[in-house]
């Protein structure tokens, strides 16, 4: 295994984060904190409790998930798209490094950044809202699993995109709406029965529900189902990436 190669890609990607701290770290932390200020402290104090949890605390897992999905996709897609855009991808393609090692480098770095951000946001939210974490190991596990899964998804988008518009279109037009409609700000059980059924087709519901369970021990869907759906999505992404490298799709002509 080319561990030096994996480390080189990982370090390069992480170095980009440290070079752009304001954009990479400060910006998502500040924007998510604004949600806590508005929905958690200001409006949240006048909302009724959901499942016995204050509204401010209830939305924390969903908001962390919202940021985690967006950042994982954005970091991973940008990480592989930029070398394609600047032409430096030639070096990765001509190096003695396997597809798995390439993915480990890029996706590993993107997921690491998202996890660091997620933990930072959790720490920041404590300044505005009081919350507990009932199952801390499960919480970290969900955080890592989601970060890796959506970094894989981001990697696919980065390979697929042949322009900056395409790089943004899926996160903006699909992922963000799915996250907002995936139980970030409400419990699925608050919806009419028909919309409850429709909501179950939204994969983000399972991520938010499972993550919220790790905080408060309550979930919209069964924990096992949440975990299974996340794993299925991860496997689908891994399968697509395997196909990309096998065929050379948009990487090797």
């Amino acid at each position: 295994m080319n561990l030096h190669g994996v480390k080189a890609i990982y370090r390069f990607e992480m170095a980009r984060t440290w070079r752009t701290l304001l954009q990479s770290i400060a910006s998502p932390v500040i924007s998510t904190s604004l949600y806590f200020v508005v929905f958690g402290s200001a409006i949240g104090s006048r909302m009724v409790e959901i499942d016995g949890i204050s509204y401010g605390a209830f939305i924390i897992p969903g908001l962390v998930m919202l940021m985690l999905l967006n950042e994982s996709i954005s970091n991973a897609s940008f990480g592989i798209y930029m070398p394609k855009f600047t032409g430096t991808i030639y070096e990765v393609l001509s190096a003695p490094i396997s597809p798995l090692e390439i993915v480990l480098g890029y996706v590993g770095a993107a997921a690491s950044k998202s996890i660091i951000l997620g933990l930072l946001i959790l720490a920041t939210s404590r300044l505005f809202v009081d919350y507990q974490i009932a199952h801390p190991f499960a919480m970290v596990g969900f955080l890592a699993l989601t970060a890796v899964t959506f970094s894989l998804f981001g990697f696919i988008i980065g390979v697929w995109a042949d322009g900056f518009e395409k790089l943004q279109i899926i996160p903006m037009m699909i992922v963000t709406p799915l996250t907002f409609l995936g139980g970030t700000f409400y419990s699925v059980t608050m919806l009419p029965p028909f919309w409850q059924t429709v909501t179950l087709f939204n994969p983000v519901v399972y991520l938010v529900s499972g993550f919220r369970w790790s905080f408060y021990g309550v979930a919209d869907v069964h924990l096992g189902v949440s975990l299974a759906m996340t794993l299925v999505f991860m496997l689908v992404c891994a399968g697509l990436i395997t196909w990309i490298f096998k065929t050379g799709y948009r990487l090797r002509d």
Partner: protein
Amino acid sequence: MSNVIEIERLNKTYDSGFTALRDINLSIRKGEIFALLGPNGAGKTTLISIICGIVNASSGTVLADGHDIRRDYRAARARIGLVPQELSTDAFETVRDTVTFSRGLFGKPANPAYVEQVLRDLSLWDKRKDKIMALSGGMKRRVMIAKALAHEPDILFLDEPTAGVDVELRRDMWNLVRGLRERGVTIILTTHYIEEAEEMADRVGVINHGRIILVERTRDLMEKLGRKELRLQLTSPLETLPEALDGLSLSLEEDGHELVYRFDARRDQGDVAGLLRRLADLGIEFRDLRTRESSLEEIFVDLVHNGGKGD
């Protein structure tokens, strides 16, 4: 001398239907400088890209130092360094960081002393902390070479290495290439500067329309395909050529002051001695003579446009 690159029946047709390479068979010898010449779109970059793993071949096999580039890609690619035609660099990285990155990417452990040596060889050491975007085009070209050398390759591909660089830098690069060859590195270069190939290459391959149309030692090629020209400055001008000189490829130029004899080195070896005897017999005197051989550029143009059949 053993072969370090073996290409057999290599074909490449892109998804668009464009066939870039047709049945390429080519061997590159260990330790040589091989120049691949061809007009734009001939298939040079596609051929290099396939060998380096950037483009997938449609069919055929390529061995790099005995390793199949697909089945045994790790061993094959570890031996190859590539300096691409485009100046593709990470603008925000420093010179030293980007060279160190390249070394790691190719599976080599960090070796600051070696990286320093490469940077010094390429006159980049003083710029090691500079961001690449702050460098001139020539310096960026040096960085590309440093990156390609970072993992100590045995085979180095230089795709148009001196395109757009000034004369001084071009000379520096030629010296660098010769130095690498002395250390046993095999160098394959494509170039538009035919004089570059003429001056540096041990062998020349000409590719056109995706086919290798010729592979020869540079010296042999010059001898076999080169045309020679003998110019005699006559003491007294001639209005017409004497009939006794019919049958020779002669012409009068400079208002009859110069008698020019052009011949193809392949066919007649040029009977210069015979011509001079006949001129003496005819009483035609000359005060000076000059000879000139056609350049590789002229040979190349002849090959590509006339298939080497002459004008």
